[in-house]
């Protein structure tokens, strides 16, 4: 088997085999070179121009190291307690590599900023609230419909017989992934390779130190144990719990200082509005009267969706499409934040926000709040810790928040902000100032 090395700014070299190289060379994966990781964050941090392409390679690299670290240490436990076999573990390692490599192939242009344009799913019943598709479902569809041959036909796969459906089922947590579901937490959990990579990579490119944490220490202390209900979970050994604290602090800092930075969020809004405009007016088959992307429900739809990337949108904007919001981006004349709550607003603050919103009326450009996607959320994290005393017997874990006063003290961030067009900033600030003065009883 031939191996290749790709130079990476975070990890030095990332090693791939010839099968993986074919997958990386597939047009669906190459498209990630044209999706920036952090959308228009370079309007605030000029270095933020890296793409989903290098992030995906990094996630595969870290997920493999995490997997290898656990298996090297806990092989006997995995076999005796959870029913894994030697062959099953070898196959799962390959599955983890492919799934982590491909986890982001369904991203919209400008990453999460494009997610507001994903359509709603057909309602399951008359009373059920309609859910919208997520980028994970576009990744799933791209793998199932478009990457079947490149995944299934390579001679190396003779050893594993991994299908495109296996990769998609693993990524989306389908029951047919069976006990391999244990490894899903390496891609979508509190200790996952996805966030481990983006915290380090984003910090490096942006030039901040907020996202740094001790990945090496976490890696060597990663293990499999049981939670309080005797269910298998990924955990950290006693010796690594301060490194786990470091990871949580890194997430908190990156969220407050970068991902939820007020100007950056304004550009997420503007690009989403501009793309909606382009979608509504573009020629067929790109056109969507509802201003939404195609649903990921057929090969034709997913091919249509994947024609969208950052370059395509730049071209449209350069050609004068995208309406008012495209112009605001070109001129860097974004909406301004004129009022914000605390990071974790109380009931009283929410009531105040409601009143200010009513007073401002049509002056408001948009109201921002952390959307439901977990990437933008900073929740109260928790991580399972395996105490030294339980390592060789029950393998029962404790929660990090029960050990760390630092983690216990962190609150979820639910900050809300009101933005207005630049021209209305002074007027809106004056309305808010009068309200605040009156509320304080000075007016």
């Amino acid at each position, binding site marked *: 088997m031939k191996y290749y090395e790709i130079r990476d700014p975070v990890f030095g070299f990332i090693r791939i085999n010839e099968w993986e190289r074919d997958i990386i060379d597939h047009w669906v994966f190459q498209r990630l070179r044209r999706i920036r990781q952090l959308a228009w964050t370079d309007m605030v941090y000029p270095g933020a121009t890296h793409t989903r392409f290098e992030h995906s390679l990094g996630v595969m690299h870290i997920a493999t190291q995490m997997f290898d670290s656990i298996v090297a240490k806990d092989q006997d436990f995995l076999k005796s*307690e*959870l*029913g894994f076999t030697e062959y099953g573990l070898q196959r799962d390692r390959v599955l983890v590599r492919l799934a982590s490599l491909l986890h982001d192939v369904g991203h919209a242009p400008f990453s999460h900023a494009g997610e507001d344009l994903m359509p709603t799913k057909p309602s*399951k*019943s008359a*009373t*059920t*609230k309609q*859910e919208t598709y*997520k980028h994970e479902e576009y990744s799933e569809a791209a793998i199932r419909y478009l990457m079947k041959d490149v995944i299934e036909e390579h001679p190396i796969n003779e050893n594993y017989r991994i299908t495109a459906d296996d990769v998609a089922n693993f990524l*989306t*947590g*389908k*029951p*047919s992934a*069976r*006990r391999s*579901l*244990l490894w*899903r*937490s390496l891609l*979508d*959990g509190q200790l996952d390779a996805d966030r481990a990579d983006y915290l380090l990579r984003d910090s490096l490119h942006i030039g901040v130190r907020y996202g740094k944490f001790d990945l090496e220490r976490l890696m060597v202390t990663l293990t499999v144990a049981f*939670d*309080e*209900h*005797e*269910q*298998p*979970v990924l955990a950290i050994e006693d010796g690594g719990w301060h490194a786990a604290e470091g990871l949580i602090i890194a997430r908190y800092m990156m969220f407050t200082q970068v991902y939820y930075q007020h100007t950056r969020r304004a550009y997420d809004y503007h690009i989403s509005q501009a793309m909606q405009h382009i979608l509504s007016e573009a020629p067929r088959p790109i056109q969507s009267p509802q201003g939404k992307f195609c649903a990921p429900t057929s090969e034709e739809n997913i091919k249509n969706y994947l024609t969208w990337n950052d370059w395509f949108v730049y071209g449209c904007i350069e050609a004068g499409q995208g309406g008012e919001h495209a112009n605001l981006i070109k001129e860097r004349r974004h909406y301004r934040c004129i009022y914000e709550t605390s990071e*974790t607003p*109380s*009931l009283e603050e*929410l009531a105040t*926000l*409601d009143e200010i*919103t009513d007073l401002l*009326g049509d002056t*408001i450009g*948009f*109201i921002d*709040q952390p959307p*439901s996607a*977990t990437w933008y*959320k900073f*929740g*109260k994290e928790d991580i399972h810790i395996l105490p030294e005393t339980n390592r060789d017997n029950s393998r*029962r*874990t*404790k*929660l990090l*928040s*029960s050990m760390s006063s630092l983690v216990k003290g962190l*609150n*979820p961030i*639910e900050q*809300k902000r009101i933005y207005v067009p630049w021209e209305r900033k002074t007027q809106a600030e004056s309305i808010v100032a009068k309200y605040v003065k009156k509320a304080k009883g000075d007016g």
Partner: protein
Amino acid sequence: MKIDIPWHRYALIVLLTDRMHASRQKFGKTALQKLVYLLQAVFNVPAGYQYSLYLHGPFCSELANDLDYLHCLGGVQVSLDSSSSGYSITPSENAQIIKDKANDFLSEYQSEIDQLLDTFGPRRVKELELFSTIVFVDRDAVNSGRNQDRDHFIREIQNIKPHFSREEIVSTIAELESLGYIQSRT
């Protein structure tokens, strides 16, 4: 322009906490996850949470976030339960204020919530784990058009839940079938 605050979700969490507390049931983070899943999947209550399957069963990170924020709003108290090394959830001082903000939603789905708590409220967390996983696998098979016979269905659950015996799995499937909550398989 209005702020989009999911009061119906917050009110639902508070109501479940109230009811579990009133009936002196043990109520923690895992029980909340599984009860809300069953409420949506079995009783079709549109709380709007999207669940994903892990080896520890269906889980929704948005629900976990909502619970933590609700603790900060004073709707519930989430405190460490030293006896189980997990967390217990109990009502807090602003519970009524939060329920009042979504009265319509709670009234509309009162009978479904009653049925949920009558059937699943008294069950141990480990049982809820198995109930919710079986319902998840059943819904996935139905939605994706997979025709599984009974034996294949049981094996799939065993593969995801190696810590439950075949007997436990078979009897839980039979119970859910008899209640009409999952498809009957032969």
